[in-house]
């Protein structure tokens, strides 16, 4: 794969949210507004980019048996850095993301990419992969946030949309139920396009999508 291919892989072909079904929790929780989606996306991209580089550099040092705790420690370090930066410079975002900012640690995308890509590839490739995946995540979050914010509150990035000012708001979209609904419909749309263009991808949220797959002793027992 060329460097460019590695970078663009995460944007569409292996979009983490809509194709790999990773990171569902933050996707559903923070997308009530487009701005929160953007903030969450950027924070996760930063962590993904840094942790991919660090884990790739350490890939020959970390013993295989303890790799999961080692990855979690590396990721948690970068998450703490992001937490401090966000608290210092964008306190409003810190408030609206709330507990989901520290929860980037257990975001399946980051652990999944460490396990699937960074532990097997060179630092430069891993950095590009992290950046691409992060951007794919951010774009999806902003898209979903935009849909929910425009339909639910009639604004976009906090700006009132002129011709929607007098229309009744579809507040269902900003509720938790609306989050599930938007995500389901968006995924159905992606599958519809896949069926038309003929590059279908199997989606499962069971073992295949689980970042703990290779270290888990359940062997499919939990499904």
């Amino acid at each position: 794969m060329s460097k460019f291919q590695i970078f663009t892989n995460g944007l569409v072909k292996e979009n983490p949210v809509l194709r790999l079904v990773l990171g569902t929790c933050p996707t559903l929780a923070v997308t009530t507004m487009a701005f929160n989606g953007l903030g969450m996306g950027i924070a996760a991209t930063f962590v993904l980019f840094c942790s991919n580089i660090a884990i790739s550099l350490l890939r020959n040092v970390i013993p295989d048996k303890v790799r999961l705790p080692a990855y979690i420690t590396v990721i948690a370090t970068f998450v703490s850095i992001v937490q401090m930066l966000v608290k210092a410079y964008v306190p409003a975002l810190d408030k609206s993301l709330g507990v989901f900012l520290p929860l980037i640690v257990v975001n399946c995308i980051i652990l999944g990419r460490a396990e699937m890509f960074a532990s097997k590839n060179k630092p430069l490739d891993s950095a590009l992969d992290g950046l691409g995946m992060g951007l794919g995540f951010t774009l999806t979050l902003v898209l979903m946030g935009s849909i929910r914010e425009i339909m639910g509150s009639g604004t976009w990035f906090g700006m009132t949309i002129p011709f929607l000012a007098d229309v009744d708001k579809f507040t269902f979209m900003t509720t938790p139920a609306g989050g599930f609904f938007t995500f389901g419909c968006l995924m159905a749309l992606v599958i519809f396009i896949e069926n038309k263009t003929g590059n279908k991808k199997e989606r499962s949220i069971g073992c295949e999508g689980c970042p703990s797959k290779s270290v888990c002793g359940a062997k499919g027992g939990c499904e």
Partner: protein
Amino acid sequence: MAARLAAIFFTMILVDNYVLVKFLGICPFLGVSKKLNSAVGMSCAVIFVMTLATAVTWPIQNFLLTPVDEAGNLKWDLGYLQTIVFILVIAVLVQLVEIVMKKYMLPLHKALGVYLPLITTNCAVLGVTVLNIDNGYNFVESIVCALGAGFGFMLAMVIFSGVRKRLEEAQPPKCFEGLPITLVAASATALSFGGFGGLIENIFGAI
């Protein structure tokens, strides 16, 4: 006191349900809810680990990271280490529980052991420990809150596994097959929990 604890417990189950309202632990909710008994097994493991993790992380936060003296001033502030310390403690704890269970409680290990490794990276467990600190709960309140969150998780899992059983026989449009229709069904389930809003305030009053 008892009323406040009951209010916290039922708020966590019905109003602030972790899965359906707060979106914590969506992966197991969608992945392990196909069969009723695996849904119950997973939920039991989550209840167990959540309570244990809270019992361990609360003292760590209040005696090691951000201890206060009698006057209420911080003795020292290591609060920025919270994320790293909590996730590592939970990871170690889960491993430890698994080893102890395997050695001394084999039947329990047979029933729950499968789900334990998955719980390390479950955002609901880390979420409940962090939220307990953020809410400023004392030790007993934290434990009750964790228990409530765990039972709320179980309720959502059990209800949803029933919903999914019916879903298997449904024939949605082709592009909705599989995960999308499951998400739409989850949306309907979450909507039903919206009906519990205001319930707790009215039963327990403004405590």
